[in-house]
């Protein structure tokens, strides 16, 4: 018995050693890859997509003059928020990172991970004054600024297929009644009046965002977001819900919208091929159509702002959507001066020109000068004027609320559309959302 026992101990030790070695080897490889605030570097973490071209260019510009070098890290695809959440409280955290402002950074602020930008702004007031105020404010948390706008603004617009509208004798609607009339006329022509990618859920949410604004003004949602849950029971809220109900029941979206998605090109193709008349979508609809249906984008893609509602209190110029993306700064960065210098580039002429070149619309005050150089000048100018004049630009609800609210919120809007929730059920679901 003695021999086997000794051997099994030896084997056990060997295996344990082997395991230990391989594990530590795995760990060793990654220790140097990101490393927040290494001795002479700052790490900039951004959402990985086509827009990285500009970020690379800016980092190169920065590195030409700065002693502290910037390193650009990207996380590709839709997993950005998840991965950010897992690294942000570790030593792998970046110094500067991309985000959507509002609710997307609130948990980080609460965990005391972010640097308020007050001091930067005191030293360089242009860091705030160079941006459109409605945009800059959406990265303000607890009264303090935490983000500097980067990339472009993406208001939600009512897109249309000009040819389909003309065939049905319809013009882009100025009022809600115009829209109801257009729905009737398009239905009579056998066309789905409004394309909706209900399978993605967030396109459905856009209808709520705009109707609440037009009917009751931006304050109702702000109140609800601030924790006053009675806002959801207000007369304005109920009226907006009633109007949505009527629109759905009138067949404005057809019957199979929940099987259609925007993200797999379902709803944009409906619009482009003339099977639908309208689509309410973020400004990226334009570049989506340019990519997949260039001829349509050039000739027949029309756009207008959301119609007004008679008797409603919301200004016709109010917008909803993604106000902008932002750069936020980690509190523990070792090179605040370098970070401040890097942020200055976000309103430089070079930044604006580069963003316009790839189809983004920056929200700096100097953007206007360069609008002519944009990939589609008329569209850029139209959007810029809207954003500049907007009395209120409401960040998309699912981004304004904390992350934990977005799934139940998406479910509630989908269920309200398909009849799974009535008005009271929807109000209860919204009241149950966590606000802070």
């Amino acid at each position, binding site marked *: 018995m003695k021999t086997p026992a000794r*051997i099994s101990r030896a084997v056990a030790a060997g295996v344990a050693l*082997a395991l230990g070695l391989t594990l530590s080897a795995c760990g060793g490889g990654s220790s140097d890859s990101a490393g927040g605030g290494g001795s002479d570097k700052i790490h900039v973490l951004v959402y990985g997509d086509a827009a990285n071209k500009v970020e690379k260019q800016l980092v190169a510009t920065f590195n030409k003059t700065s002693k502290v070098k910037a390193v650009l890290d990207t996380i590709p695809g839709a997993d950005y928020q998840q991965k950010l959440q897992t690294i942000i*409280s570790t030593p792998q955290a970046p110094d500067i990172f991309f985000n959507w402002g509002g609710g997307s950074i609130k948990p980080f602020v609460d965990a005391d991970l972010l640097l308020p930008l007050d001091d930067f702004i005191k030293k360089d007031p242009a860091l705030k004054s160079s941006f459109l105020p409605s945009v800059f404010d959406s990265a303000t948390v607890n009264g303090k600024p935490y983000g500097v706008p980067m990339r472009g603004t993406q208001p939600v617009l009512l897109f249309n297929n000009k040819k389909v509208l003309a065939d049905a004798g319809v013009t882009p609607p100025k009022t809600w009644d115009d829209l109801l009339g257009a729905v009737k006329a398009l239905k009579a022509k056998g066309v789905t009046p409004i394309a909706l990618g209900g399978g993605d859920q967030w396109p459905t949410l856009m209808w709520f965002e705009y109707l609440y604004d037009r009917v009751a003004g931006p304050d109702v949602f702000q109140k609800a977001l601030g924790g006053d849950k009675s806002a959801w029971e207000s007369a304005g809220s109920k009226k907006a819900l009633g109007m949505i109900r009527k629109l759905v029941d009138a067949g404005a979206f*057809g*019957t199979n919208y929940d*099987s259609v998605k925007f993200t797999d090109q*379902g709803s944009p193709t409906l619009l482009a091929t003339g099977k639908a008349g309208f689509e309410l979508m973020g400004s990226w609809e334009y570049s989506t159509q340019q990519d997949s249906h260039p001829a349509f984008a050039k000739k027949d893609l029309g756009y207008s702002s959301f119609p007004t509602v008679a008797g409603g209190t919301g200004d016709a110029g109010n917008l909803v959507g993604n106000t902008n993306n932002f750069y936020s700064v980690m509190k523990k960065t070792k090179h605040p001066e370098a970070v401040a210098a890097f942020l200055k580039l976000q309103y430089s002429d070079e930044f604006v020109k580069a963003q316009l070149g790839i189809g983004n619309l920056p929200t700096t005050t100097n953007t206007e000068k360069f609008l002519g150089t944009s990939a589609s000048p008329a569209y850029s100018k139209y959007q810029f004027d809207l954003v500049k004049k907007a009395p209120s630009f409401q960040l998309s609800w699912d981004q304004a609320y904390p992350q934990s609210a*977005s799934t139940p919120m998406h479910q509630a809007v989908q269920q309200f559309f*398909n009849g799974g929730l009535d008005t009271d059920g929807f109000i209860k679901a919204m009241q149950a959302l966590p606000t802070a």
Partner: protein
Amino acid sequence: MTTTVTKAAVVAERRPAQRRSAGVGRPGFAWALPATAFFVLFAVVPLVLVAVLSFTSWNGLGSPRFAGLDNWTKLFDDPVMLNSLWLSVLITVLGVLVQTPLSILLGVWAAGRQRNRAILSAIYFVPLLLSATAVSVLWRTLLDPNFGVPSQAKWLFGDGNLLGMQSGAIGVLVFVGAWQFTPFHTLIYQGAARAIPQVLYQAAQIDGAGTVRQFFHITLPQLRNTMITSMILMVVGGLTTFDTVLILTQGGPGTDTTISAYYMYQKAFKSFDFGAGSAIALLLVVVATVISLVVVRVSGYDKMRSSVEGL
């Protein structure tokens, strides 16, 4: 990694000789050590951590805060959670009911010696080689109401709103699951059917039993143990269905296809409520264990006897 493990295996392999010379024929614990080490590291430790996390409140930032029974009381008051368990069971049961008859028939057929059998079997096997993600994306596109099959077959699909209503969405999930996993179970049944002794069929033929009779009185009873194995695999697979839901329905419409595994993902990785997500995970472990025990009990798998006794 591979080399070190192989080395350990080589060391372990030398042992039987020494054992036999010592007159002991039973392998010791060391044989199981590599597998046990991995199992403990990647299954037991995470399970314990999940159990601990389920009593905390944690959003992934900072350290978890002890929350007592909070997650658990919320869980049992949560209508979505209870509904998700029911949906998981429903999808599992439907999966077993659809896949079992199909795979038995295909498997028994594939066990024969017909012309072209090998080629057709190979073709039937293809779906299993594709990743669940690819399969889901494929069917999502094929079932698009405006540009997919439903738009060309309105007599069958109506307005094509398959994924926009609960019955349709569950139907699609069960169908896609069956399309992908029937080949696997077919393979199991094929092997089992091949193992049935030919003498049984020869004897039946002499007694004048036809093909149908042979199938019901020889093949099916002989496949009993295989059926239980295959069904347990289907139950486990069904309860942990995730990728098809993620890509085809995202738990929608509303929460109509939010099965437990997907709800766990939503809580933990969409809402960053790791405490609640862990509680769901643990509950799922318990439910799956109970169901497996019931299956084993009811089927008599625990006191299973050889099906070729007396031959």
